[in-house]
């Protein structure tokens, strides 16, 4: 039997289910919060994960949200040892930068503060729960009536520490959206 072409009455054998490559672990809606933390999503069940973040609204005094992210363990964020390389474009203009010295969070791009936002971030994160440095690749998209941008990131957390979750932050007053986490088999 070759899944995922299912037929009525098919038996889902362990071998079939164990062949599923991407497993949804959580879907979390957040409303008017400054940050969202997910605990115990990184486990020994999976080495690698995909995280999807969509922000649909935000409020704040600033023009833009600057989004950031930290790994966490046992309910506490790690606030050191994040490095990244980034490249982006806003409209017709490109920009780039890097932090190789180790800052206290990963940069997740920026997006205009708006009651209706079209910001998304896709992150593939490799081995966060392993006692080894964590690497990740990500891209963010912003498309609204006043600004368009895309940014690509290479990221690494240099500590050989096991993490079970992460926190996603805005620097503005609050944000609303959804975060999904999937495990790669």
């Amino acid at each position, binding site marked *: 039997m070759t899944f995922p072409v299912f037929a009525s009455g098919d038996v889902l054998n362990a071998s079939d289910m164990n062949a599923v490559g991407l497993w949804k672990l959580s879907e979390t809606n957040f409303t008017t919060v*400054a940050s*969202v933390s997910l605990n115990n999503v990184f486990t020994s069940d999976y080495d690698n994960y995909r995280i999807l973040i969509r922000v649909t609204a935000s409020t704040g005094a600033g023009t833009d949200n600057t989004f950031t992210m930290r790994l966490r363990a046992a309910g506490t964020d790690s606030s050191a040892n994040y490095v990244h390389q980034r490249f982006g474009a806003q409209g017709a203009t490109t920009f780039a930068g890097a932090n190789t010295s180790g800052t*206290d969070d990963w*940069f997740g791009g920026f997006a205009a503060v708006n009651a209706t936002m079209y910001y998304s971030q896709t992150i593939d994160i490799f081995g966060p729960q392993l006692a080894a440095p964590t690497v990740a690749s990500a891209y963010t998209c912003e498309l609204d009536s006043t600004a368009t941008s895309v940014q690509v990131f290479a990221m690494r957390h240099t500590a050989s520490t096991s993490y079970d979750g992460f926190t996603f932050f805005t620097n503005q007053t609050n944000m609303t959206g959804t975060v999904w986490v999937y495990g790669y088999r």
Partner: protein
Amino acid sequence: MATDNKLEFDAATNQSVVRELTEAEQTQRAKDIAKANDLRDSIQSELSAKQSARTKLAALGLTEAEIKALVG
């Protein structure tokens, strides 16, 4: 100082809680906001400088393709 909220989800129990930031979290948030603003300002400065360069290069007679080749 107003206290901000955070949502905390535990995949082990599948439970979510919205709570106010602790004092330590609020202190860290203030630092994070300042740093995030600095980072955003530095990117905006880069974008503004490139846009200014585009305008000046166009005034010198360069085509859009030539400007793109120079400043991206």
